[in-house]
């Protein structure tokens, strides 16, 4: 009989429109982290410092990992 602890984590449904496991949510958080930074540098950095974008992307990433 298979050891239950060795089974992959069950995909779950959060606010994202697909089933995700932990790896998916970390991946999406990293993708959003990079995207927010690039967008910020291109359009917002002249008026708002990049560190604000970093804080925002960390918050977004944490929400995605916890509730996505």
């Amino acid at each position, binding site marked *: 009989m298979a050891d239950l602890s*060795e089974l992959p984590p069950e995909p779950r*449904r959060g606010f994202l*429109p*697909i*089933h995700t496991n932990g790896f998916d949510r970390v*991946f999406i958080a990293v*993708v959003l982290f*990079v*995207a927010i*930074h*690039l967008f910020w*540098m*291109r359009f917002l*950095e002249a008026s708002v410092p*990049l560190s604000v974008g970093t804080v925002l992307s960390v918050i977004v990433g944490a929400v995605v990992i916890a509730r996505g």
Partner: protein
Amino acid sequence: MRSSTVGWLFLAPTLVILFIFGVLPFLYVLVIGFTQWNSFAADPTMQYNGVENFRRLMFDDQFLYSLWLTLKFGFFAVASQILLGYLLAQLFMRDFPGKGFFRTVHTLPLVIAPIAVGATWRLLLVPGLGPVPYYLNQWFGYELNISRYIDQAFVATVVMDIWHWTPLVTLTLLAALASLPKEPFEQAQIDGANRFQIFWHVTLPLLKPAILATVFIRLMDALRTVDEVWMLTGGGPGAATRYIGLHIWRVVFPKTDYGYGAAMSLITLYLTIVMCWLLYAGLVARRDLKRAE
């Protein structure tokens, strides 16, 4: 010995090779992407400069134009290859005289090195020397000059890529078509479905995983095309066919701006992964979710 230990032992050679040839170079490029490193600069040593390379990228019109061109090239090349590849795969599912010969000839472009493909197409298309511009002009009065007209140069690179890689799509889809079960098709025919309905509701859904895998492979390849285009147009005329791989090459080698080139490579990798993931999420994961609901 526990089964998981045996499993890890079997995996170990692959993981070691992957780490040495995949992960380590990626980490190296990642580090270089955050540095100012130009061997011909006043200070040729590697200097950490934070996100400056990425900030520069976001305002670099040449880079953004190359990126746009590459996406355009990838879209037209891959879409055409999938369509043509599917039609050819359907053709090869039927019997006709000379099928074996035609299939062999059709597969030949796959075994030719990209640099040789580029050279061959250049000899065919170069103005003043190639037979294609000559006969197009003689027979139709059409002026084909890929060194002069940017649209023609772009179309030439797309057509060359289609010629080179459609056989791969055909072979993949042919294997997928040959392995499809017969029962759903017989059931659809009994239910009175016409050919289009069978294609849309039976063939296409069953082929979707194979089509998606082929799109991933071809999209990743198309986004990193360098050698064929370099031979055919050299990125010109002007920057009309300077796709992102060529642009990165120009920055890294002739200009020796390693840090900036590494940052470009990272952004290209990022976009490739994101595009493939979005395709997967949009076409597969959402469908699975709907089915589960």
